[in-house]
């Protein structure tokens, strides 16, 4: 069975949803404002005769008509980074500011991490963590190519992430800190939303896998809330439609940690749906409607889920 059938009751236009899931995704790049401006990147692409279209919701995200990202001069200079269009949402929800301390819990290979670095104007402290050493080399390679200097790379299990390396136990030391201003949890998930890029995810889908990643997601999100200062923000995102991995995870953490779901500004001209409060035999905290679901037919992208939490206390 196609696991996407499960979600038919959630979408507004079933036919458009299934049709969109069949179509391949266009090649999309993000302009890296650490090294250039949107204007110069466009000029360089024009000079090379690379055709592109600006997305109508973000000036720095360009759809390439028939090129792959890795074979032109602006790419070599780190002015462009291949990034799926919808995956630009979590950093926008996170809204990181220059000079802040930010933790990206599951950072590799680094598209969102480097987008966060650019939004911070490459100032402050951005901790990019991943539990997989092999994937960390991809993170480092991407960050270096894009000219990011404010990234600290760590290799820990995010579920019990230790603040010790940052001087938690020696607060008098210069540069020591024990909490973050903002944290992104772009969690490992069942990835159904990436089926337009990689249809294999649907063949490999099992309910067991959904349950197992949901457990990991809960652990990472709890730790993220614990190390964020009161008033700080935690963004939770996945590329799946499964409520077991989305709203159920939020519901679980809302009950156990001192935090609240808040609205975030989805860019104008980008269509999204609210989180769901009921699924099969379960009911979730009513505030999960503040989360945003993105279905492929809404903006001709991959599928996505993004929620923003504010830490209390």
């Amino acid at each position: 069975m196609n696991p996407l059938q499960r979600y038919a009751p959630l979408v507004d236009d079933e036919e458009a949803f299934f049709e969109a899931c069949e179509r391949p995704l266009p090649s999309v790049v993000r302009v890296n404002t650490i090294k250039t401006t949107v204007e110069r990147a466009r000029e360089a692409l024009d000079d090379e005769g690379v055709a592109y279209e600006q997305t109508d919701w973000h000036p720095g995200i360009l759809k390439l008509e028939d090129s792959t990202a890795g074979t032109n001069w602006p790419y070599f200079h780190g002015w462009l980074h291949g990034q799926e269009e919808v995956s630009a949402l979590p950093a926008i929800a996170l809204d990181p500011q220059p000079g802040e301390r930010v933790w990206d819990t599951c950072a590799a290979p680094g598209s969102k991490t480097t987008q966060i670095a650019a939004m911070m104007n490459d100032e402050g402290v951005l901790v990019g963590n991943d539990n997989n050493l092999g994937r960390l080399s991809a993170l480092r390679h991407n960050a270096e190519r894009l000219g990011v200097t404010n990234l600290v790379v760590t290799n820990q299990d995010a579920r019990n992430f230790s603040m010790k390396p940052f001087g938690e136990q020696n607060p008098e030391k210069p540069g020591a800190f024990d909490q973050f201003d903002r944290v992104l949890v772009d969690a490992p998930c069942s990835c159904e939303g990436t089926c337009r890029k990689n249809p294999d995810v649907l063949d490999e889908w099992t309910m067991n896998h959904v349950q197992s990643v949901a457990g990991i997601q809960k652990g990472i999100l709890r730790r993220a809330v614990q190390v964020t200062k009161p008033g700080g923000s935690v963004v939770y995102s996945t590329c799946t439609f499964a409520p077991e991995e989305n709203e159920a995870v939020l519901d679980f953490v809302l009950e156990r940690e001192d935090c609240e779901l808040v609205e975030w500004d989805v860019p104008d001209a980008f269509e999204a749906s609210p989180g769901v409060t009921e699924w099969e035999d379960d009911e979730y905290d009513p505030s999960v409607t503040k989360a945003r679901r993105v279905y492929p037919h809404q903006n001709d992208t991959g599928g996505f889920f993004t929620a923003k939490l504010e830490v209390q206390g």
Partner: protein
Amino acid sequence: MRDETAEDENWGQQFDRLPETPEDRVVEGRPSRQEVVDWWEERFGLDPETFDHYTFWEKGAGKIWAFPAEMVDPIQVEGLGMRILRTRQRHWKPSTNAVQRFCRDATKNVIELSPGEAKAFVAGHDQQLDWWEGDWGYLVAAHELAGEREPLGVGLYLHGELRSTVPKGRQEDLKKLD
């Protein structure tokens, strides 16, 4: 047996902050912050203020990293900012990424390449460029892109030849820009 907590030795598994000046040096062979800033100014004419907000760190022998904030010292992490320079050898060698990031305003030892030369450079080829009349050693290789000079990476110029040091993972087979 080596004492891995000794403060006067260099340890490969942690980042240690560079001393401010040579007089503050405790670890033998470690460059000071002042020497690093001076080197970029002397070699490429970079304004020392470029690095005002950066702290400098060593991990491994002579691998110097730049980070734009304070951080506890020492710190055991996988990466801290950007690796900018390799010291502890006769000629200090800048990294491709640092040159791309910081050398747009370089005023010295910048070799401007034609479209064909730039293409060969980023593909990793060495080339005879006898017209260069400046210093030998590590140069910033640059070309024109979108109306301005843009640094490509680091070249080693010796005996009329510019050797590309663009790392394998960064080499690209690009078309010539007219």
